[in-house]
């Protein structure tokens, strides 16, 4: 997994509540058996004027000028500012794959759906929850100031605004540790394989019907 330590990034505001993972990456792209290449189809139905299917040359498709992420000022953004309940719905990990492939490393919002939130951490994508008032202020600044950037420091757990204001955020210690080091958590879990085997052996005796 890609590590995440610190980032100075351009901010793009996506001002909609309840953005679901069907919107982030529509179902027709889920037929792929790969983990990569989903970026050009992130937000496909909002981003392009035509209907997208796998295998199309996305560079030749007409873009929807009304979709915020198509505005030239947000090209190259690595921080996506979102509204409540971002990532709700389907558990498809293709959603964080698509966001990461589109260039995002940080999501800033008031709340995220549980499964999506977990999936982000497995892919070097940092979702940060902040109070609604802080998010409202960030939206106001990002919309008002061209080239608006933020500094995200995972070690210090801070978001630093251009005007110098520092906002602290919470993150689980274990997730932070994995993300800072780019650790594969399967490798870490397998360090506990003796404990897993012991647990399983006890379970076989206590509930043999689970092992038939």
């Amino acid at each position: 997994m890609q590590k995440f330590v610190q980032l100075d990034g351009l901010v793009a505001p996506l001002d909609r509540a309840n953005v679901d993972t069907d919107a982030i990456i529509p179902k027709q792209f889920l037929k792929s058996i790969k983990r990569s290449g989903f970026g050009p189809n992130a937000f496909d139905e909002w981003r392009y004027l035509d209907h997208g299917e796998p295998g199309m040359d996305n560079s030749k498709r007409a873009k929807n000028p009304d979709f915020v992420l198509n505005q030239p000022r947000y090209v190259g953004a690595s921080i996506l500012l979102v509204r409540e309940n971002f990532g709700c719905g389907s558990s498809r990990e293709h959603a964080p794959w698509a966001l990461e492939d589109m260039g995002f490393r940080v999501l800033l919002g008031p709340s995220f759906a549980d499964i999506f939130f977990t999936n982000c951490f497995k892919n070097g994508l940092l979702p940060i929850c902040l109070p609604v008032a802080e998010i409202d202020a960030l939206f106001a600044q990002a919309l008002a100031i061209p080239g608006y950037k933020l500094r995200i420091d995972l070690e210090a757990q801070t978001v630093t605004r251009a005007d110098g204001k520092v906002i602290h955020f919470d993150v689980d210690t274990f997730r932070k540790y994995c993300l800072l080091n780019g650790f594969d958590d399967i490798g870490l879990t397998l360090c506990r394989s003796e404990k897993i085997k012991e647990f399983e052996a006890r379970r076989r005796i206590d509930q043999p019907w689970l092992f038939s």
Partner: protein
Amino acid sequence: MIKTLYDKLWESHVVHVEDDGTTLLYIDRHLVHEVTSPQAFEGLKLAGRKPWRVSSIVATADHNTPTKEWEKGIEDPISRLQVETLDANIRESGALVYFPFRDKGQGIVHVVGPEIGATLPGMTVVCGDSHTSTHGAFACLAHGIGTSEVEHVLATQCLLQKKSKSMLVRFDGALGRGVTAKDMVLAFIGRIGTAGGTGYAIEFSGSAIRGLSMESRMTICNMAIEAGARVGFVAVDETTVAYLKGRPFAPKGATWDRAEAYWRTLVSDQGASFDSVVDIDVSRIEPQVTWGTSPEMVVSVTGTVPAPEDFSDPVRREGVERALQYMGLTPRTPINKIPIDKVFIGSCTNSRIEDLREAASIVKGRRVAPTVKLALVVPGSGLVKRQAEAEGLDKVFVAAGFEWREPGCSMCLAMNADRLEPGERCASTSNRNFEGRQGVGGRTHLVSPAMAATAAIAGHFADVRDLI
């Protein structure tokens, strides 16, 4: 010590706890389908790892598979490759049981698991699919996971988790005529919102839940995720035990007795406390119809489409405006005046035998309205299909003008050829009415099987209570 059912399910699976509370939780049952598993099997192979316990795996192809002309195979080459990849992966790794495309046991993974008795009380059940919460009906800790977690479970038989907060939802009172489990869960989501359950594990309880069949309880738990909760479950009672007896993968003989004794402990203790409690009087619930692009945008069939000015919060108001525009609806339109183009009866929410019986009882002796372009019935599994055919339900549907299809996820998410065209409006028994969910530009209204059948006959949404 007094414990909730959630405490019991959680504690009985803890392998290890990190300092920050991150817990290694043992996984009993792993359901696998073609869409979210190929990258996990590939990752496993690239790392030189083997599946930890293949007898935990129940696999089937469901999302991509066509629902007609099975003899032609899968026409879309990308879908076909995905299903073939599942095939190759499972044949190489092994599984407790695998129902490949066209097998007589194939079906939606959340329908297949319970019907063969592979979902048993007290299990942790995971699948790369958010509707895994369905299995909570059996007092399981069951939830959807992403593909990285699918790989983690394959490799380690465990998941890294943090314990959620607990919510008790009490459904009490007598359910009205024509009102079903689907209406109960839609009304619940309308009440707490699609993020109302985020961070919670929900126990559904109360006299109205106790009075439901296992299939109806599955419908309710299935949609816990639409309220934001990854898990929703129901305590074990006579109904649970009776359902499991004799299922192929349920224990037998003396082992059954031991299992049953354990299962009966899977209830919240008297006086257990919850972080949140929601009380719902089901006698006040009417048949529900969603009008918008989120399951929380729901009203009774006797109601009207709301107007943006009904909502004071600016973010919500804007969401309502956008939803009305997408859905092509005018505020204050009576729900029973909204015409429909298509009807879909199916999905892991409502494709079991009782759902089909419920819909057939409405349809019997009537005809689908001529303005309805397509009315589909997609059974949840091969077993459901054959049972329905044995009861003659297929003939009832076909005589009325419905199409009777092969099992699969079908038009719930439209990964196969079953879909809405732009602007088409559908009465659907599925679980999500998101933009584009059933096809680009398609407009989905979530309803119960009885209400979908009623809409098919009327050509517009109508009150099922007028037909029964």
